[in-house]
């Protein structure tokens, strides 16, 4: 196991895991443990940032390095179904890039479960990791200055949904009318680390 603990400021530590899958599993285990001295946990693609008021004890550090990742027991991972109109500007480009037809791209997107690895970039933006690498595509060579809210995109190993209008460089394959970020909702973010997402194609 090549997990490492890296220093990150006076009150922070970066727990580096093998890969995203291990990171998601370790995050679940940490959430279950609910350590008193850890005041904040921020996952990344292969790391979890931990903030504590005091430096963690050597024993606690050892525990972090040896913690068994947890897989979602049946029904314990929050599941969200998101309806998508697959009418994105880049759907044809994506099909060409991965060597499939447009319909096959849609089937690949809806046919696998996507797990929120971490959030970043903007409030409510979740980086979704799929079950296979069928839809792995590079970012657009020229990012757009304005991507409509609800746009569903692909980049590298990720899928994601833009919570609000703004600049973006991902390949857009569709849009959803579902609200990803709503300040009147608790929690305001629809997607949180560990949430499992299934996309459903809406006709038309």
């Amino acid at each position: 196991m090549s997990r490492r603990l890296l220093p990150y400021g006076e009150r922070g530590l970066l727990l580096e895991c093998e890969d995203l899958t291990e990171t998601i599993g370790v995050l679940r285990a940490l959430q279950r443990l609910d350590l008193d001295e850890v005041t904040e946990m921020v996952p990344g693609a292969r790391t979890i940032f931990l903030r504590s008021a005091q430096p963690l004890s050597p024993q606690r550090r050892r525990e972090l390095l040896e913690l068994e990742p947890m897989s979602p027991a049946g029904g314990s991972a929050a599941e969200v179904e998101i309806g998508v109109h697959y009418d994105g500007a880049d759907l044809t480009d994506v099909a060409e890039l991965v060597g499939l037809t447009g319909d096959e791209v849609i089937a690949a997107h809806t046919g696998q479960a996507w797990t929120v690895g971490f959030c970043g970039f903007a409030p409510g933006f979740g980086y979704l990791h799929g079950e296979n690498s069928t839809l792995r595509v590079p970012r657009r060579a020229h990012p757009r200055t304005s991507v409509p809210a609800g746009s569903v995109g692909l980049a590298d190993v990720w899928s994601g949904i833009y919570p609000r209008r703004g600049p973006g460089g991902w390949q857009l394959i569709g849009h959803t009318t579902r609200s990803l970020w709503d300040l009147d909702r608790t929690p305001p973010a629809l997607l949180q680390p560990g949430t499992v997402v299934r996309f459903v194609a809406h006709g038309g």
Partner: protein
Amino acid sequence: MVQDLGREGQAHLGVSPSGAADRSALRLANRLVGNPEDAAAIECVLGGLMVTASAMHWVAVTGAPTDVLVNGTRVGSHASLPLHPGSTLAIEAPREGLRSYLAVRGGVQVAPTLGSRSTDVLSGLGPEPLAPGTELPVGAPLQPLPDTDLAPVERPRTTLAVLPGPRRDWFTDDAWRTLLTTDWQVSSESNRVAVRLVGGQLERSTPEELPSEAMVRGAIQVPSSGLPLIFGPDHPVTGGYPVIAVLTERDADHAGQLRPGGTVRFVLARERLPGSPGHR
């Protein structure tokens, strides 16, 4: 703009911590007027703030050393003072440093967003930046005024203490030396998201791309340009470029006072472990 101590503990949802760029100055201003330290106050850059009291208010101005005028007359900063109804307070541009904090007894009582009244310039969360004519509601005092109504004016510091960051090993030893020996110039492209620096290039020891990981206030990140930046309170919560060093908590506040055109140097922080001599 309105700032308090920010939105803690929500970074995992993509929400930046935000809050005052110079947290200790905000806390001091609040203490001077008998507020809880996390009450909302006004943060302004290079002075330029003028407010009129519509009722009797106790106020204090802290942060960068500057002149404060009440009805045109110079009064002290870093002191609590009464502002009578109809009186105008103006904060002049500071001679050094960047940001001033105006606290009012009772706190600025605009509606909070996600538990904070701070304006986040990256995401747009929180109150709109203040414009001429904006009226700010003030709350009721919660604590007595302190016995001390004066505080020492701390000069902005331009040598800031750092600890090695999580990706120190992504950089050459030359890069580390360059970080600690350069007189970095603060770029005018700096804001609450990041203080951008010019003056040297920090060489990578590996061409790898960094899988996105958490970023923190005070982190010194090196994007593909090789020019370092210091993340401020409105930093993006994750990033794909390596962090070579991290400011101490206290010196992250001093970073909030770095002026475009000014200079900053970094020095390795002496380790202060809890319980050891010299630990504050």
